């Protein structure tokens, strides 16, 4: 334990995701050692981001305005929604340049053991968009782990009766990997969803 402000800083840093007590201490000491203007820049960046960035009222991605750039863009294709867990997944899908529709960020995934159910996610907002925006296809792009799959199956059940086409990102072999290292579930699904070679 350190004195007041030093310990406060360590405690606050320790609350960040993926930062344990040791890393928190290392970062705190680093911040105390660097020149004051450098540390202030960080502090101002946090303040500015917290002031200016909000959630898009429609898709719940980060946004500087009521509607984010993607939601307000006229060049995006209407009718298709890509549902992701977090904002960082929007970035990942955007990098593929394969998707021209719009997004919906759930802000998490179902995690029954942690008690995280649909009420804690932007699920009702998603359902509201289907009719409101005349959506014809929803692409469920949650993570291919157990929580992400539970989330996708749950959403598919809710979306099915609404008469919208529901698709899920394909599971398959990572490009550049070796077949022999693929786990049974991945390889099994890749085989099942194999496609003709042109």
């Amino acid at each position: 334990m350190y004195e007041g402000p030093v310990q406060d800083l360590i405690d606050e840093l320790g609350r960040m995701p993926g930062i344990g007590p040791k890393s928190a201490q290392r970062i705190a000491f680093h911040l105390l050692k660097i020149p004051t203007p450098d540390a202030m820049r960080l502090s101002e960046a946090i303040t500015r981001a917290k002031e200016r960035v909000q959630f898009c009222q429609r898709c719940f991605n980060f946004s500087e305005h009521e509607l984010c750039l993607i939601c307000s863009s006229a060049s995006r294709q209407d009718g298709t929604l890509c549902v992701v867990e977090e904002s960082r997944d929007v970035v990942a899908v955007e990098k593929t340049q394969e998707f021209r529709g719009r997004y919906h960020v759930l802000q998490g995934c179902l995690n029954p053991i942690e008690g995280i159910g649909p009420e804690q996610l932007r699920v009702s907002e998603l359902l509201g968009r289907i009719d409101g925006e005349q959506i014809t296809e929803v692409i469920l792009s949650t993570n291919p782990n157990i929580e992400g799959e539970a989330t996708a199956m749950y959403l598919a059940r809710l979306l099915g009766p609404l008469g919208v086409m529901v698709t899920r990102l394909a599971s398959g072999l990572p490009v550049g990997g070796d077949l022999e290292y693929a786990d049974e579930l991945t390889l099994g699904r890749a085989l099942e969803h194999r496609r003709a070679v042109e």
Partner: protein
Amino acid sequence: MALYRERGVVLRTYKLGEADRIVSILTQGRGKVRAVAKGVRKTKSRFGGRLEPTSHVELQLYEGRELDIVTQAESIDAHRHIREDLDRLSKAIVLLEAIDQLAQERQPAPQLYRMLVGGLSTLNQADSALLIPAFLLKLLAMEGFGPQLDGCVVGGPQDDGVDLVSFDLDRNGAVCLDHRRGVPIREESLSVMRAVLGGGLSTVLEVSAGPVTHEVDNLVGHMWEHHIERRLRSAHVLDRA
């Protein structure tokens, strides 16, 4: 550091740092083990989907001071039918949570391991309305909280042969009309519970969902909270789908 091999079932995982996870595993020989799986969240991880909850795996681990480190993982059973069906997956998660509450770190619990492996493989073969309550009831009995289902738990032998109408959680048994207390219960529900504890599990698993399965499910849930003093958080999270 010592290297060892174990069979185990992944109970839960926690994100660690950028791409790692802490995996909590119920092993065959060492009870609950917590280990780091490095890089497992990367799409090209050699662990792939093998270290997800419900997976039954054969592992090689390095023994660490607090956390062990997973160095190899091979599937014994990926439980695909559980993974790809929301109802079964929700049930499997409850089984994992219950086992997680009972198992202690690094204390061998071969019976819990056998129960879990059996429960998951049963669920992987077919879904069943009574799978969870049957599983929890067996665990309760194993922990020394097996209920008294024959004869009134209040009146004792004097009340032999009378109809049993309710269940008293404190005394952990069925009660007759004269001594009625606790929650009301149907005779069919009591006989389902007797069958679970008396080796008649396979017939119990064929009972289809209805008022009886619902009643047993509720009662066993209450028994769990009463005796284990923990709530099963995952039990009804996905019910509304």
